[in-house]
Every structure is written in C-alpha cells, then in structure tokens.
C-alpha cells in the first residue's frame, strides 16, 4: 500500500496491513508536524504532491527495500494538504521476521522519501510561509 491522501492517516489500518504470521517485528515511522523549525514558530505544514508520480516513487522505495532486506510487508502513506501540529504527515510501516531488517528498511524509506518523492511542504509560520527544500544549498530566502 503506497499512496498519498488528503485524509488523516490511520496507523491501525497500516499496522493491520503489514501484520504477518512470519513477522517478529513491526516498525512504524510517524513523521509529525513540529511546532518549531529553525527558530520559527510553526503553525502548520501544507503538503502538495505530484500524486501519480509520488505513489509510483513510494512503491519503488518499497521494491528497493525488499531487495535490500528480508522484510515481510511494507506500506507508506503520505498525507497532503494542511497538517496541524502533532498530526502525522507520513507513516511508514514495515514488518519483518527480525527487527534489524524492519528498522533498516524503515530508516531507508524515510531518507529516500526526503530525496526522491515529488512531495513538497510549505511551512506556515508566524509571520509568513516558505517552501522547504532540501536539494538546494541556497538559503530559504533565495527560494521564495
């Protein structure tokens, strides 16, 4: 299950999806909106995607993880639109026979998402808003 959605993400549904009689470990990763970033008071994050390609890239990450580690099942759901403080913007869940593989695949997935999946976040903070970008060495001020 690799998708983007405008709805709140249901952690239980994802854990149920990856639960497997062969699995001894399930590692979810939940990315949440933090109330501060680089000294700014964050009000919310607002996510936008190129949805068809984002889902394709998320599935590609799942395929890559399966070739790298002996995992049972994996799911990634990324939320779009405004995500309030404390809410989940992304949930990755991995099940595996052993915890090493589950931790490694989870970690891999979140790093890959931040590198290659066409999803963008705009940070809405007290006094303004800014598109956050990690592929550029430019100061944020140059981007907006």
């Amino acid at each position, binding site marked *: 299950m690799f998708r983007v959605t405008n709805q709140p993400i249901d952690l239980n549904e994802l854990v149920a999806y990856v639960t497997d009689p062969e699995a001894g470990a399930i590692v979810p990763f939940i990315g949440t909106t933090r109330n501060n970033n680089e000294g700014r008071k964050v009000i919310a994050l607002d996510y936008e995607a190129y949805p068809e390609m984002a889902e394709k890239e998320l599935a590609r990450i799942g395929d890559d993880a399966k070739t790298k580690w002996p995992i049972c099942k994996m799911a990634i759901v990324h939320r779009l639109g405004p995500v309030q403080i404390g809410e989940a913007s992304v949930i990755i869940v991995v099940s595996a026979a052993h915890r090493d593989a589950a931790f490694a695949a989870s970690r891999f997935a979140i790093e890959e998402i931040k590198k290659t999946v066409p999803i963008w976040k705009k940070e809405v903070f007290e006094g303004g808003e800014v598109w956050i970008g990690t592929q550029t060495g430019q100061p944020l001020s*140059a981007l907006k």
Partner: protein
Amino acid sequence: MKVRVKFFAMLRERAGVADLSKEVAEGSTVGELWRQLQKDYPKLDVPGIRLLYAVNQNYVGIEHRLSDRDEVVFIPPVSGG
C-alpha cells in the same frame, strides 16, 4: 508537437498556472523546454534552484528528448516526510 507541462509547489505559485500545453520543436530536450518556459514565465528563473526533471512520471536527465504528448514536470527540491 505538443507536450503537457505541470507545475507544482513553488513553481506552480511562480508560474501562476498548474497545467499547460506547449508547442515545441521536434527533437527538443527537457532543458530547451525549460528555457522556453522561463521566457514565458520569467518568475520561473529562481537563482540557484536545482531542479529534477520527470517525463511521463519517470526521472530523466536534462538532455532527454521529448516526444509528442509527453507529460513533463519540473521538480523543485522535494521536501516530503
């Protein structure tokens, strides 16, 4: 030939448009299309920005040659997660 261009995030805001159809010369590359779009929408010229390029939902290099009806997306720095 014609290609379809979609803008997202910062580029969508700067172009003021999310989706457009563009006539390009046979054999044009992604990079050539980008330079033409920057003439049409001067605000797309963001100093120092590093873009990735997708054609039909696959990443391609800037020298990739376009075909009729391709869907082309210019991908500003991603920041999901």
